[in-house]
């Protein structure tokens, strides 16, 4: 059984993983870069090892140094969190070779699901619906045209090796087909050194709905229902919720079965997520599999009641799953919002800096996963996510009300955050009604603009308070008026000199 886990990550997810380890009586090892000495994960862990300079490529992505730290500390397992090395088959294999348990899936599963075309083929073979399109990389215009004629417009052309939107082209009209295919191919060639593309039916009103799965090393696989992740800004999820407001019990059951089948096709063990694209008529198509823990896993934990990190560790220990599909239920409704250090009123400019003050909303149905603290300086080298706020309530409506209540008192000063922007999302009619797709942010720009919500009185009071603060500071700097006061002040000074801390 695993006794000591090295967490090859930083930020909130490192602490998230360590919390479950602590509850299981497992010791924790942190690794950190130059700029992360003061980071909370170093403080939270039982042990901490320095692994290099700030840039990820020289620290959190350095497999050799991480393995070295694991060996030096005697850690018998490594949890990769999300991002960094979490979906790196080489790292998973390296751990295996070094006799360290990788808390995640097999290199085979990572590899198969990591390549879009292989994944797609595997899914078709397993009977999981995929977006109509090519199964083989397309390397010439002629084949491309044939395929497009078969699928019908609109289509999306994507680089086979790609990611991050590079080499992607949406084609709506027949006359643009030739140009778009050529452009996508040359872009793919330039970006990835491979001009293979694949072509898919374009879903014009797409919902991003994903299913959480858990598989053990004995072939048991279950799903923990869906997460609705359609609120996205530039392919970045902003708000996630479960259950999905558009889901029906029948479709949920069918999609859950498809998710399990998808995982089974790669003999999946560990926690994973099957992402589907779903149209307005609830037709669903396999999009991709994330072979790791997701950022938004807490909403599933809250609604299903299962600690996913503990499950990952149990699976890594070779234990059979302790749940059967029929044991699991969704209770109530959970919503997660991601708090980023960015300025939503200034083109989402990143806002690294020193956290001066944090006020956490507390109370019923409120969960936080974060890592910042007062006096902590958010470095500019990594992801700008500061924390996740997760609320639960009996109903979706109540969950939104609770989230509003929580955001109202959530204050992080020193850096700009996305909190006001998140608050505005909750007032958009399409969100309130639960009728939104991945175009939500784009289509609701008007609602999402900063609005003057303050009364004249509030503006006056803001000005007055700043002024009072300024005057009070001035007074404290003023030389005292009389001799007697002077004497007192010297006494005070003497006292303060001795006691520097408040």
């Amino acid at each position, binding site marked *: 059984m695993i006794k000591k886990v090295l967490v090859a990550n930083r930020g909130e997810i490192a602490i998230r993983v360590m919390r479950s380890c602590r509850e299981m009586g497992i010791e924790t090892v942190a690794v950190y870069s130059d700029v992360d000495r003061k980071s909370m994960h170093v403080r939270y862990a039982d042990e901490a090892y320095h692994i290099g300079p700030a840039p990820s490529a020289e620290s959190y992505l350095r497999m050799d140094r991480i393995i070295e730290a694991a060996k030096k500390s005697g850690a018998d397992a490594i949890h990769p969190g999300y991002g960094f090395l979490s979906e790196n088959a080489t790292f998973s294999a390296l751990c295996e070779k070094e006799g360290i348990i990788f808390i995640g899936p097999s290199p085979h599963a990572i590899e198969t699901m990591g390549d879009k075309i292989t994944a797609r083929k595997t899914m078709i073979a397993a009977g999981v619906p995929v977006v109509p399109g090519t199964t083989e990389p397309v390397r010439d215009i002629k084949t491309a045209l044939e395929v497009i004629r078969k699928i019908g417009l609109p289509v999306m052309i994507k680089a086979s090796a790609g990611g991050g939107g590079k080499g992607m082209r949406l084609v709506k009209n027949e006359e643009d087909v030739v140009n778009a295919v050529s452009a996508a191919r040359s872009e793919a060639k330039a970006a990835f050194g491979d001009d293979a593309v694949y072509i898919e039916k374009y879903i014009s009103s797409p919902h991003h709905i994903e299913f959480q799965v858990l598989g053990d090393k004995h072939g048991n696989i279950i799903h923990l229902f869906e997460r609705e992740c359609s609120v996205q800004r530039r392919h970045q999820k902003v708000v996630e919720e479960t259950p999905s407001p558009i889901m029906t019990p029948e479709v949920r059951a069918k999609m859950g079965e498809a998710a399990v089948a998808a995982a089974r096709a790669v003999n999946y063990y560990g926690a994973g997520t099957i992402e589907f694209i779903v149209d307005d008529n609830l037709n669903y198509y396999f999009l991709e599999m994330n072979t790791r823990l997701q950022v938004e896993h807490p909403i599933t934990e809250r609604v299903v009641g299962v600690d996913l990190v503990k499950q990952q560790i149990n699976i890594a220990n070779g234990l059979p799953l302790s749940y059967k599909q029929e044991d699991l239920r969704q209770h109530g409704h959970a919503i997660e919002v991601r708090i980023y*250090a*960015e300025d939503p009123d*200034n083109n989402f*400019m*990143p*806002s*690294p*800096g020193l956290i*001066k*003050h944090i006020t956490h909303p507390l109370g019923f149905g409120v969960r936080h996963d974060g890592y910042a603290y007062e006096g902590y300086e958010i470095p*500019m*080298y*990594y*992801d*700008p996510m500061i924390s996740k706020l997760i609320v639960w309530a009996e109903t979706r409506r109540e969950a939104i009300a609770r989230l509003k209540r929580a955001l*109202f008192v959530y*204050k992080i*000063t*020193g850096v700009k955050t996305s*909190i*006001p922007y998140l*608050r505005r999302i909750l007032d958009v009619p399409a969100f309130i009604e639960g009728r939104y797709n991945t175009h939500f942010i784009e289509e609701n720009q008007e609602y999402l603009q900063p609005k*003057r*919500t*303050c009364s004249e*009185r*509030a*503006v*006056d*009071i*803001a*000005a*007055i*308070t*700043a*002024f*009072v*603060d*300024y*005057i*009070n*500071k001035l007074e404290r700097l003023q030389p005292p008026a009389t001799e007697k006061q002077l004497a007192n002040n010297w006494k005070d000074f003497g006292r303060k000199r001795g006691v520097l801390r408040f």
Partner: protein
Amino acid sequence: MAYEIKIEDKIRNIEILSRDGNYYQIAIDNKVYELDIIEVEQGVYSVLHENSSFNVELVENKGSKSYIVNTFFSSFEVDIIDAEAKYQLNRRRDDGDDGNVIVSPMPGKVVKVLFKEGDAVKAGQTVVVVSAMKMDSEYKVKQDRTIKRILVKEGDTVSGDQPMVILE
């Protein structure tokens, strides 16, 4: 003594008429407020006005006379305009300096400097690219300009509000 204070780009007159502990009588322009103002945490004030409760959070902006004030979901820039500030304000107006400097608004790392000193740049061209938190920001010029001085080089770490390029 009356001061001037700038909020939402308007300059307003402000004066403390009387004070008794945390009870203030304050006039802003011609409106008089009676307020109970008390600092509850460092930089956080609780304000009661006619029994309404406000939480006002002050963050220093640029120096001790400039604040960012947060209340509810609104954020304001507030500047206290004393004699010194007035002087600075006038001087700056004469210099017209601001438009001649490309300043990094946030801490980051310079990943690209696309011109060198003396180069002519066209309106809309990117001069510097700064990276922070996995995102690149491009700094462009709005009109045709000439580059006078470049104060940073690729790989440099810049802090917020640091001048990077001076234009002619």
